[in-house]
C-alpha cells in the first residue's frame, strides 16, 4: 500500500537512506537556486544589451528571443522549472519556498556587482531576515508527508 502512511516510521531518525535523500535534496535545492539566479541574470543582461528598443515589429521580438543571452536565460529558466518540479517530489512545498528564497539575495548581489545598483541598510536588513528564515526552515526535515522508504517494506 503506497498511500498508507506509517506514523511510527516518520518519527524514526533518518537512516542511511534518509541521509542520502537529504543530501540529494540539498544538492538539487542548490541547482534550483543557481539556475533561477543565473537564468534571470542572463535574461536581464540580454534585454539590457539589445541594440534596438523592444517594440514595433514582431521581427524585433523574434530577434530578441534568439539573441544569445536571452537564449541562455530561457534555457536556464526551463532547467529551473524542471528541477523545481523534481524537488517538489522530495521536499515539502513549505520547505522549498523559503529555502529557495536565497535567490532574491543572490540576485540583489549580482545586481550590485554587474549593474552597479546600491545596497542600502534596509536591503542588508532584508538579506539578514531572509538568511535567518532560511536557516530556521533548513533545520526542519525537508519531507514530512513521504511514505516510508521502499526498503522498509521488503
Amino acid at each position: 500500500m503506497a498511500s498508507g502512511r506509517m506514523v511510527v516510521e516518520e518519527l524514526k531518525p533518518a537512516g542511511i537512506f534518509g541521509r542520502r535523500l537529504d543530501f540529494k535534496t540539498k544538492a538539487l535545492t542548490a541547482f534550483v537556486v543557481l539556475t533561477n539566479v543565473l537564468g534571470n541574470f542572463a535574461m536581464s543582461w540580454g534585454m539590457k544589451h539589445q541594440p534596438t528598443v523592444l517594440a514595433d515589429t514582431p521581427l524585433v521580438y523574434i530577434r530578441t528571443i534568439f539573441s544569445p543571452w536571452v537564449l541562455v536565460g530561457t534555457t536556464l529558466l526551463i532547467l529551473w522549472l524542471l528541477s523545481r518540479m523534481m524537488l517538489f517530489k522530495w521536499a515539502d512545498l513549505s520547505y522549498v519556498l523559503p529555502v529557495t528564497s536565497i535567490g532574491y539575495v543572490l540576485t540583489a548581489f549580482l545586481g550590485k556587482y554587474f549593474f552597479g545598483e546600491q545596497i542600502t541598510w534596509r536591503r542588508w536588513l532584508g538579506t539578514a531576515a531572509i538568511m535567518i528564515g532560511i536557516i530556521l526552515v533548513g533545520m526542519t526535515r525537508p519531507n514530512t508527508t513521504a511514505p516510508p522508504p521502499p526498503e522498509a517494506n521488503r
Partner: protein
Amino acid sequence: MKWLMVAVIVVSTVLADLLQSFEMKRRDAAVEDRRPRQGPLVLAVIIMAISFFAFMKLLSLADMSFAVPITAASVVIETILAKLVLKEQVTPMRWAGACFVACGVALLAA
C-alpha cells in the same frame, strides 16, 4: 488595475505551486500506477505563464519596489495552504522561517 494584477499573480502562483507539489508527490507515492498523467503539470505550467505575464504587466503599472514585496506574500499564503491542503507538518520553526523570508523579501525590494 494594479490590484487586479496583484490578485492574478498571487492566486496563479499559489495555484501553480500547489498543483506541482501535489502532482509530483502523488507520482512518487503511486508506485503501482505506471501511467503518469501529464495534465496537471501542463496546467501548472500554463498557470505559471499567466502569472509571469501578469507580473510583466504589473511592472509596467507599478514600481519594482511595489511589485516584488507584494508578491512575496504568496510565501506565507502557500505555507498556510501547504498545511491545510497538502497536510504538511508545518512546525513553529517553519512558520517563523516563512515569516522571516517574507519580511526579508519585502525589505530587500523596498
